Every structure is written in C-alpha cells, then in structure tokens.
C-alpha cells in the first residue's frame, strides 16, 4: 500500500475511531475526552483531506481497490477509492463543515445527557459520508448511502423520548426506503447488464449500454440507461429530498440543530446531487432522464420555497430553504450543468451550515424558543450571530460578490441557455424562486434580528424540556465562543468561496474527466463565452433580473414585517384557500398518510390475518402440529403392552421383508 493510499484510508477511518471511542467507551472516558477524541478524529481527516487536495491539485488522481470484501461469481464486492477533484472537493466540504459542527456541539449540547452519544453519531456520520464520496464502486456507495441514512435516522430521533422526534425519524427512514428501493434497482440493473459494480468498468461499457433496451411493461422497449438513470435518480430524490419524497426533511428538524446543519443541510442531503454528478456519463446519454430530473428539481425549487414563507419555526424556515436550494442543484443537473450543481452544493454547504448554526445560536440565546414571532431586535443582544446571519442570508439570496451569487446565477444562466425538455418551465421556476428565496430569508432575518423585541411576553410560557439550566438571565445574550467561532469560520467561505472558485470550477476545466458533458448539452458553454472574471461577473450581477427580483423580495419582506406588520395576516385571510394549501404543505403528508400509510397498513393487515394467522399459523404451523399429534396418538394406540401383539409385529416385519426381498433373490 502506497503512502497516498494510507492517507486515503486515514481520512474516513480517523472519524470512525473517534466514533467508536466516544460511542462504546463514552461513559468510561467522560464528556471532555469524548469530544476531544472525536474532534481530533475529524481534524485529522480534515488535515489529511487538505494534503490530498494539494496532491490532486498537483495533477494526481487515484482509482483503485484496497480490499476485496467478497466475490460472488464474477461479481467482486470491493472497498476502493476514487480520488479526483470532485471527490476531494466533497472531502474538504464534509470534513470542514463537520469539524465546525463538532466544535459548535460542545456549546450547543453541553447540558445534554446524551453528549457522548451525540459526538459518536456525528463522527460516525462523517465516516459514512466520506466512504460515500470516496467510493470507486456502487457497493461502497450504497454502503455509505445507507450508513448516512442510518445515522440520520438515529440523530433525528436523538431525543428518543420525544414522540414527535420518533415520528419524524420513522418518517425519514420510511421515505428514504422508497428512494433506496429505486436506487437499488438502478444498481441492480447496472450489475445485471455490465457484470461489474466498478464505476470505471461500468463507464467503459457505455457504448454497448447506450444501445440496449429493456421491456418494462409488456413489450414496450425502454432504453436501458434511461431506466437506470431514473432509478438512480429516485434514490437521489429520497436522499436529497426532492418532490414528492421531500416530506421527511422538514420533520427532521426535530433533531438537534447541529445535525440539521451538518446532515440535513450541508452534506448528507447533497449526496444525491453528488451521486448524479458522479454518474454524469450515464445521465448524459439519456435526455429523458435529464428532463425528468429537471422538472422534479424545478418544482422542488419553487414550490418548497413558497412553503418557507409561512413557516414560523426558525429551523423550518431554513429547512424549506434547503429544500428549495436542493431543487436549484437538481435543476442544474437536469441541464447538464453538473459543475454548477456541485459548485452550488459547495457554496450552499457553507452558507446553509452557517444559517443553521446561527439559528441554533439564536435558539440557545432564546432559551429554546424557536418561534420567530416571539423574537425580534436580537441584533444588539447577539451581535456576532446577527452579523453572520446577515452574511448567510445575503449569500443565500445571491447578493453579488457573496458565494451564493456566483453559484446560483450560474445555474439560472445555464437553465436559460439550455434546450433540455422542460427548460422553459424550469427557468420560470428558478426566477420566481429568487424572489421567494429573498422574501422568506429576509422575513426571517427581520423578524429575528430587527423590529420590536417580542420575547419578554413570550418568555414566561416558553419552557423547554431538554435541559438548558446553565443559562441564567432573563434576556437573550450572545452564545459562548465555541458556538460563535464556527459561525465566524463558516462566514468566511460564505463570502469568498464563490469569488475564488468560480473561475476554475465552472470554466477552468478543473473537474477534468470527473464530469462528462456532451457537446450539445453544454449549457455552461454559453456562460463561458461571456465570462471574463469573477469580479466582472459580480459587477454585472447588479444589473441582472435575478438581482432585481432578490431586491424586490428583500424590500417586500422589509415592508411587510418592519413597516406594516399587520399586512401578512390580512393577505392570509384574503387568500384563504392558498394559505391553507401552503399551511398543509400541499397536502403531501395528508395524502401519504391516507393513501400510503393507511394503504400499507390495510395491506399488512390482510397479509397478517389471511397470510400469517390463517395460512401460516393456522394451517401450516398448528395444522402440522395437529396432524402430527394425531399420528402420535394413533401410534400410541398400537403400543398396547400386550406381549403377543409385540411378537406378532415382529412376525409381520419378517414377512414384509421376506415378501419384498426374498422373492427378488
């Protein structure tokens, strides 16, 4: 094993070691040792990732297997790494955000009895996510995919005595099963048609794959790769919360805030985006699949944004904003602008983690009050949180020079230039989405940090049940340094990363062969023609339609929530049906509960009553037992105890043997 291979191994294994120590021996080694060991693990992973980054930057890449886990026939199940620029970017994002969240957790969870368990889980998550992004084959990808899902499940239900948390984690688990079912079908189809699960081998067989067809219903012939890509994308829809499999993400806010930042904003939910980007050679072949991706993404981007407008829980606003932004990334995938999608993934990871952690900081400051209607005027009480939140919000709405501007504008431009089916619809969605994003972001920002202080009245009734006894004082105050330091550290890339990275990532062929875009689909080529420098793009950004829309959104929010706070309620009454539609989240949950949940319960009941109780228990199990018992009684009847009958039996035996075999001699 070469030096670099060892280094690659260290990256995922260091957090795993930390997770094992904190998880298995947490009670033994205590709280401080638990967070030291896990933070150390993630820090090692981060440093190693930086080293790998420099190595990759120098032009090296790696694709190889470290260990063969099992072979089934010709199918090899291996543990291997594919280290290229796409991977290393994900590694850096994951380890950096994870490190920030680890540090933040010291402050956020310090009074929680499950302190060690929490650290163990987030380190385990980091390990799983790294395994996912570093994989060079579908098996390891699926392993990481499921492992992050598992940790997500565990963390949403972290406060396992809270019934809403248990409901939420079960929901997340079940909805993700639907997605994983599709994902697994896709992997299965690939394995069946290529006999390999290795990325490189699969991609090398593309020419033969792209002409294959399979029949799904009756005799209709479907291009194999379209089916494969849609199946894989269904997996991505589950993990990256795209309509209609998005329903679990808002509920996942039941988990502690640090994991909302790490898992449900920055990293895990982007796994789907990453996976589709990895599979870009496959998706490039199928226009149908890309159109499907595009429509789903555009729908998510706009309609989930609408829902953000009416939320009053600070975390749920951010959650719906995450859904909407994931929609933007998916739209980029749909128009073959994979690098723009990944670029937005990266910038979003920083500013969304920042926004979530800032929300957590506000929650601490407010003594676990999460309703933004009971906040206000916090800017002078929590200055660091205020400034960093402002930065995060500006980045989110795509204010020029901020990170989000470069990525989001690129996506919008790419959609405008694309000819993919559904691109027009998507363009409308993403444009309106800009206004909506700005509106709900600044609605929250104004309600939390500006305006009248509304928390005095509310404070008496707001009481939390998971222990923040250490916080004294009646008024909100700035959080401890372990909480605000990550905010500051995340604010830096939220400002500069777009400016620094857009050149190489989007137009500099930085990703090289990691991402494959066919000539005809290259929507970014149009942008490239006009792109001179990041500075120029930002300056130009002040004169574009999206900027105007964003400013309009901010202004509307300011007018509604700072100048005339009574307007929103009036609008809600005036547009009653629309408001109710939004309030019920387009009735997705209701529909799922009535159709899928109740339906499967009814189906399960049929199987249980008819299949299990009647056939298996009644007929097979008890029936067999009864028959055997009956036989036993009959045999018992022959055991009379009379000697002459016993002797007679022997004679019968002799005669039988003689009759059968004597005659054959």
């Amino acid at each position, binding site marked *: 094993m070469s030096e670099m291979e060892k280094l690659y191994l260290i990256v995922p294994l260091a957090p795993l070691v930390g997770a094992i120590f904190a998880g298995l021996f947490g009670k033994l080694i205590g709280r401080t040792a638990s967070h030291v060991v896990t933070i150390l693990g993630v820090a090692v992973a981060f440093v190693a990732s930086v080293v790998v980054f420099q190595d990759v930057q120098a032009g090296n890449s790696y694709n190889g297997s470290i260990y063969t886990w099992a072979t089934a026939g010709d199918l090899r199940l291996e543990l291997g790494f594919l280290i290229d620029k796409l991977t290393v970017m994900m590694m850096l994002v994951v380890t950096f955000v994870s490190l920030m969240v680890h540090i933040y957790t010291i402050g956020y969870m310090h009074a929680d009895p499950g302190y060690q368990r929490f650290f163990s889980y987030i380190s385990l998550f980091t390990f799983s996510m790294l395994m996912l992004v570093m994989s060079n084959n579908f098996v390891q990808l699926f392993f990481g995919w499921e492992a992050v899902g598992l940790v997500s499940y565990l963390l949403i239900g972290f406060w396992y005595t809270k019934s809403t948390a248990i409901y939420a984690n079960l929901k997340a688990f079940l909805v993700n099963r639907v997605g994983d079912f599709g994902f697994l079908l896709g992997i299965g189809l690939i394995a069946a048609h290529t006999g390999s699960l290795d990325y490189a081998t699969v991609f090398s067989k593309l020419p033969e794959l792209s002409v294959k067809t399979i029949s799904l219903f009756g005799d209709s012939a479907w291009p194999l790769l379209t089916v494969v890509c849609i199946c894989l994308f269904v997996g991505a829809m589950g993990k990256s919360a795209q309509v209609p499999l998005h329903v679990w993400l808002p509920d996942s806010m039941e988990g502690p805030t640090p994991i909302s930042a790490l898992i449900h904003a920055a990293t895990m939910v982007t796994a789907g985006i990453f996976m589709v980007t990895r599979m870009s050679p496959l998706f490039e072949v199928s226009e149908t699949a890309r159109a499907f991706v595009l429509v789903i993404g555009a729908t998510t981007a706009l309609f989930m944004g609408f829902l953000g407008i009416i939320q009053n829980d600070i975390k749920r606003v951010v959650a719906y904003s995450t859904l909407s932004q994931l929609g933007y990334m998916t739209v980029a995938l749909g128009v073959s602008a994979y690098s723009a999608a990944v670029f937005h993934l990266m910038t979003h990871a920083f500013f969304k983690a920042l926004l979530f952690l800032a929300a957590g900081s506000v929650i601490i400051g407010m003594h676990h009050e999460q309703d933004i209607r009971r906040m206000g005027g916090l800017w002078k009480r929590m200055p660091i949180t205020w400034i960093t939140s402002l930065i995060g919000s500006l980045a989110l709405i795509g204010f020029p020079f901020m990170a989000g501007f470069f990525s989001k504008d690129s996506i919008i431009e790419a959609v405008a230039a694309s000819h993919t089916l559904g691109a027009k619809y998507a363009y409308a969605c993403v444009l309106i989405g800009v206004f909506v994003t700005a509106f709900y972001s600044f609605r929250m920002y104004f309600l939390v940090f500006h305006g009248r202080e509304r928390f005095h009245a509310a404070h008496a009734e707001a009481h939390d049940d998971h222990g923040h006894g250490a916080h004294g004082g009646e008024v909100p105050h700035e959080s401890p340094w372990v909480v605000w330091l990550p905010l500051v550290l995340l604010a830096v890339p939220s400002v500069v990363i777009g400016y620094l990275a857009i050149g190489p990532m989007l137009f500099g062929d930085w990703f090289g062969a990691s991402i494959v875009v066919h000539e005809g689909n290259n929507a970014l080529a149009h942008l490239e023609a006009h792109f001179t420098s990041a500075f120029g793009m930002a300056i130009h950004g002040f004169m574009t339609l999206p900027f105007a829309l964003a400013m309009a959104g901010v202004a509307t929010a300011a007018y509604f929530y700072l100048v005339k706070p009574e307007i929103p309620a009036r609008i809600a009454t005036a547009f009653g049906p629309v408001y109710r539609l939004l309030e019920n989240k387009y009735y997705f949950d209701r529909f799922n509960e009535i159709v899928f949940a109740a339906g499967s319960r009814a189906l399960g009941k049929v199987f249980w009553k008819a299949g299990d109780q009647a056939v298996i228990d009644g007929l097979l199990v008890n029936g067999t037992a009864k028959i055997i018992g009956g*036989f*036993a009684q009959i045999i018992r009847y022959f055991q009379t105890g009379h000697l002459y009958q*016993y*002797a007679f*039996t*022997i004679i019968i*035996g002799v005669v039988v043997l003689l009759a059968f075999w004597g005659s*054959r*001699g």
Partner: protein
Amino acid sequence: MDFVMPDFRLAAPELFVAAMSLVILMVTSFAKSRARSAAFWLCEFTLLAAVFLTLFSGTVDRAQTFSGMYISDLLGGFLKAVVCLSVAVVLQYGRAYMADRKIDSPEYYILVLFAALGMMVLISASHFVSIYLGLELMSLALYALVAIDRDNPRSTEAGMKYFVLGALASGLLLYGMSMLYGATGSLQIHEISQRIYERSANDMVVVFGLVFVLVGIAFKLGVVPFHMWVPDVYHGAPTAVTLLVSSAPKIAAFAMAFRILVLGLFDLAEQWQMMLMLLAVGSIVLGNLAAVAQTNIKRMLAYSGISHMGFMLLGLMSGVVKGEGGTYAVNAYSSAMFYAVAYVMMTLAAFGMVILLSRAGFEAENVDDFKGLNQRSPWFAGMMLIVMFSMAGIPFFVGFFAKLSVLQAVVAAGNVSGQALYYWLAGLAVLMSAVGAYYYLRVVKVMYFDDAVDTSPLTATLGTRTLLSANALSIAAVGLLPNWLMQICAFTLLH
C-alpha cells in the same frame, strides 16, 4: 482339524474382563459387608483397565485368532473402548440410584460386567458362533438386569417382555445363520463373503438367510418394526438399567451390523440396502411422531432412540450404490459410526439427567419433573439444555454434526447414483428432525419457563455431578471440534 494354540494376546481385553468378572464374583461372595462397594470399584477398575488394554494392546493390522472366530482390528478396539467407557459411566451414574432402591446387590455389578463382556465379544466376533455367543451373553445379562427390581411388577414385566421377544429374535437370527451356513457351508464371515462372491451359494437361500439375520440385528438396534420392546423396557426397567440398555449395546449392534452386512454379505448389498432403507424410514418417522405424544421422559427418550437408530441405519445404507461400494462409502460408514458414538454420548447424559433428578423414594420419569429445573439448579438445566439441543440436532453440538454427516452421505449417494430417491430420503430425515425438535425443546421449555413442581434439592453425589457435567460438556466440545472424532471413525474403518 488340528488344534492350533490360539493367540491369546489378541483377545487380551476380553480375557481380562472375563477373568476379572470371576474374581469379582469370588470377592463379593466373601466380602460380606463391603461387597457392594468392592464390586463397584472393582468393576470400574476392570472397565477402565479394559479401555486401556483395547487401546494399547491391540495390533494395528487386522489379525484373527481362535480359528477365525475372533478378529482384532482398530475398529473393534475403538468401539470396545467406547463400550467399556460408557459402561463405566453407567455404573457411576446408577450407583446411588440402585443403592437408594436397595437393588444394588453384587449381582447387579457382575451382570453389568457380563453384559459388557458380551458386547466386547460381539464387537470382535467374525464368526456366526462367536457373534451368537457374544449376543446372548449380552442379552441374557440385560434380561436379568431389566428385571432386577424383582418386587416391582413393572420391572419384572419389562424383563419378561424383553426376554420373550429377545428369544424370538434370537431364534430368527439363528435360523438365518443356519440358512447362510446351508448355502455357503461356512460360519466364518470372510469365508461366507468369499463363497457368495464365487456364486457357489444358492441366491434364494442366501437372501432368506439375510432377512432373518437382519431381523436379529434390527431387534438389537430397536428399529421399526422390531422396536415394540423398546418403550416398555426403557420405561419398566430401573433407570440405571435403562441407561445401560440404551447406550453401549447400540455400539455393539452397530459393530455386528457392520461386520455381517458390509464385511460378510456385501454381495447382497443391493438387497440389504433396500431393507435398511425401509427400516430406517420407518424408525425415523414412527420414532419421532410417537415421541411427540409421550409425557413420560423415559418413553420419550425410547422413541427418540428409535429415530436415532433409524438415522444411523440411513448412514450405513448410504455406502452402497447399485450394489457397489466406492470412495464415498467410507464417509457413509463413518457417518453411521459417528452417529452411534454421538448417540451413546447423548443418551448417557440424557438418562443421567433423569437419574440426577431421582432420589430415594422418588422416581423422576415425567417430562413434568423437569419443570423449573432452572430455578433449582441453573447449572444442570444448562447441561440438559445442551443434551436436548444436541439430540434435536441444533448446531453446534455433536448431534448436529452426526445428522449432518449422515445427510451428507445420503446426498452423496444420491449424487453418485443419480437417483432422486436419496434426496427424498434426506428431505424426509430433515423434516422428521424438525418434528423431533418439538419434543426436545419442550423439555427445555419446561425447564426454563415453567415453575418447579418439585423443589427439593438435588441429592446426587459430587462424582456423579462432575461426570454428568463432563459428559454434557463433551457433547458441546465435540460439537465444536467434530473433526477428530470423525477422522477416528474413518481411520478405524479403513484399517
């Protein structure tokens, strides 16, 4: 015929046990007050010394003596060692039990020793006369032992039934032997084999002879339809005697079956294979089904023993395909031998547990007597759990590997012959094992999940407790490392 001085050294173990039994007879006649204890210790010494002698005095190569009546080989040596060892265990388990019931007269010990001698002779016999001699020596001693509790009508009834049916079976066996003699002109097993091979024998008569000889063997093994005595005798005999009847004689009967059928009458393999199959299927089905209905644990173990013997026969008959042997045959025979040895280990421990729960004035013989054993003695509940799991064929206990190797042999025969019949046989055996699991696990269930009816403490001596624990633990140990016993079986069979 000239008299040739036989090579006595080859028969040293038998001669030693015979001589010692006469010594013990004398000693107990004179040592009035300590006769019982002297008899016990002398018997134990004799048996353990015999184990030593069989293992270390025998020749590695096959050798005959007493004009071809007696054969000395590794197979016999190993099986005799197992027999002597298990009889020694039987004596230790049964000592307190017999004493509590005042039936531990010196004759008991002498009779047990004579039975052991009979088994040893039977194992080493290679001549119909010596086979019959050994068989009757063993059987007569067992008849008397079953009826030893002579004031107990159940015991005497059982002894009577055993004797009458055994006499009938002996008569049939003798009849078969005489037919074979008539057909081949010899009583020596190898000569008979030779004659039949040369086709100087009248086929019809030979097959008739085979049937009757087979009945004699089947009766001793207690397989269907010659099993009717088994439940009544196991039930009626004092438990210590049941322990003896159920264990070592099965080894001797296996040796007898192997020597007569495989070594002597292999040219009739096509015939006896089908007969054994019939007997095996009948035993496995009937034994397991009937055991389900039993509430008396001694009867339950009796029926379970019938099914186990059926399993063993299944292994024995798998060594033949279309009348031919092959390389796989060794596996089949050694699987049967492994099964017999494993069964003896398990049955000793099972009846040992029944004895353990009995005490002066109380006869533990119902499954219900095991209720709540876990509360009374978690350790022995655990031991019984091992025994029952092993009998049920749950991995990783010796009973599992015994069943597994037999099934492998059956399937191998199916693969070689290409006949689906073998697969059906294996399937049936597995299915019936599943039925069997029910009544074994029922014992486990009552031990752990029911409340104790009888709460008095266990009275067994330290020696019995230790030995019983060692017995049960060895079932687990051999189950974890089954290979060495399997290799011994294959090795001794090959020589």
